[in-house]
């Protein structure tokens, strides 16, 4: 994740604290999910940006996970994510998210 984005995420957590903030990912690539997830939980894995060594410990979910989808207005979800949901490897995303959260 680029340093500017890390800086903005750090600013959000500095302002609101980490108890009320949730990160929702949208990447489809398991490697991209791992990098983004690590960055907002245990710190920048590349040790290059403002979040290097900073454990924000934020909860992380994915927009394609059922527990997120069921909370979204179905029409909005269909318009914004519907086509992508059909073309992306949703099971690979679910698997990567479980791994990211240490759920096996």
């Amino acid at each position, binding site marked *: 994740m680029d340093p500017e*984005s890390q800086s903005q995420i750090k600013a*959000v957590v500095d302002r609101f604290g980490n108890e009320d903030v*949730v990160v*929702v990912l*949208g*990447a489809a*690539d398991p490697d991209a999910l791992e990098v983004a997830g690590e960055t907002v939980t245990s710190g920048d894995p590349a040790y290059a940006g403002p979040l290097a060594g900073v454990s924000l410990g934020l909860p992380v979910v994915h927009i*394609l996970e059922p527990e997120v989808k069921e909370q979204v207005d179905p029409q909005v979800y269909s318009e914004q*994510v519907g086509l992508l949901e059909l073309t992306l490897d949703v099971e690979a995303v679910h698997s990567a998210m479980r791994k990211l959260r240490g759920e096996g």
Partner: protein
Amino acid sequence: MRLEGRKVIALGERDGVPGEAIASCLASAGAEVVFSLTECFV
């Protein structure tokens, strides 16, 4: 995890779901999107 009333960081991706699409969805779920971006992972 309930999203309603929570502050959300939407980290989208160009080859996945973009940040703007995530933000629209979460707003409809009653969450407050405090930061949104669309990364390009290569």
